[in-house]
């Protein structure tokens, strides 16, 4: 049976925890709004980009650059796993890691090589134990306050550099798609070779300089655009996940405080009763 003083200390400690989780929830809510705005501001570019690429790809029949057609093999895969830099966001990181692990396991079982590039340290920590020897690189975004296109370009040029060096055949990205505050869906998306749905639109475009040059310019940009979109979705998802995790934590803390308070009151009552019994039995003995 804990003493009254112990109970008091515990109640105070849970109360201060509740204050912290409440504050974190509010901070996440504010950040979520900003992240959502950034994600929706980036959407027009991505949509138009896809439309242009689709038109272009329809005109390229056979052949074409490796970024579009692949290397002709699917022996070595690069898994780009994007997670958060900070914890306390519920199952956000675990769900991405779980999906990436499933793919990595499948590749290893099939006798293929899986290489892992991690973005964000939380996923790296979770993957290290099982797949630490598959790591080929890590992108640290700890210092980045607001994810910009430049960050996506850096990751893309890293990925493209490895592709040009022949380090892998297929690249996938893993991230969480933001559906709502309570639902973030882990996604896997193939970025190399590019998956383009050829458009039905039969407009014939002139290309300046030539269509090969344009395609060679566009495909790397497409990789960066997809990575950027994934980073933004991930950013919004992270804040959403943190918001609901902190909401839960606040509620749990509240319940715990109620329980502890009841226990505290009961203990106090027991102490009083005890003292009374002692006094009364003492008086009777005289």
């Amino acid at each position, binding site marked *: 049976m804990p003493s009254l003083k112990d109970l008091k200390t515990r109640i105070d400690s849970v109360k201060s925890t509740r204050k912290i989780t409440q504050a974190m929830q509010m901070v996440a809510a504010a950040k979520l709004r900003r992240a959502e705005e950034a994600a929706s501001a980036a959407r027009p*570019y991505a949509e138009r*980009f896809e*439309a*242009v690429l689709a038109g272009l790809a329809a005109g390229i029949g056979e052949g074409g650059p490796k970024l579009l057609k692949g290397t002709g093999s699917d022996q070595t895969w690069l898994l780009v796993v994007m997670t958060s830099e900070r914890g306390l966001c519920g199952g956000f990181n675990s769900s991405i890691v779980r999906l990436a692990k499933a793919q990595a396991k499948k590749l290893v079982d099939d006798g293929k090589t899986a290489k892992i590039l991690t973005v964000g340290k939380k996923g790296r920590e979770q993957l290290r134990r099982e797949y630490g020897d598959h790591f080929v690189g890590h992108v640290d975004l700890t210092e980045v306050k607001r994810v910009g296109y430049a960050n996506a370009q850096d990751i893309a040029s890293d990925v493209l550099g490895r592709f040009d060096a022949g380090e892998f055949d297929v690249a996938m990205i893993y991230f969480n798609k933001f559906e709502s505050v309570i639902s973030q869906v882990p996604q896997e998306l193939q970025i190399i070779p590019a998956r383009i749905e050829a458009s039905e639109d039969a*407009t*014939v475009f002139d290309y*300046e*300089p030539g269509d090969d040059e344009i395609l060679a310019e566009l495909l790397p940009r497409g990789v960066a*655009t997809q990575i950027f979109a994934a980073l933004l979705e991930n950013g919004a998802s992270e804040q959403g996940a943190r918001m609901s995790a902190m909401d839960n934590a606040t509620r749990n803390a509240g319940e715990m405080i109620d329980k502890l308070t009841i226990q505290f009151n009961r203990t106090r009552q027991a102490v009083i009763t005890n003292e009374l019994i002692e006094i009364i039995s003492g008086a009777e003995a005289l």
Partner: protein
Amino acid sequence: MPGTMQFDLVSPERSLASGQASSVLIPGADGDMVAMPDHAPVVTGLRPGIVAAEIDGGMLEFVVTGGFAQITTEGATVLADEALPKAEITSGFLDERIAAAKEGQEASTGATADETAKRVADLETLKGML
């Protein structure tokens, strides 16, 4: 009265302009071009320069550092790598880009040397135009 066409200028981070334009000046990779309604469909790369759209008789000018543009009979869409309204450009912004381009030029050899040199020259011309 000539007609108008849909004009959109977007960068990866945001959409900068959207509206009905009667003409759009585009700094194409192979030279400037002006898109007007019913222009033949073209996709072109961009060099660093100024995109100028004539909307309701007024000119909207934006500085772009690269990207590409799609012109169809119905409209022109400029997908810039980086774009800012001309009024918001500071000399520091361009100096940074020029420094980065020069670094790229020093690092490049052979076939890409010409391209990187052109980028430096384009950026410096652009700076002179402002």
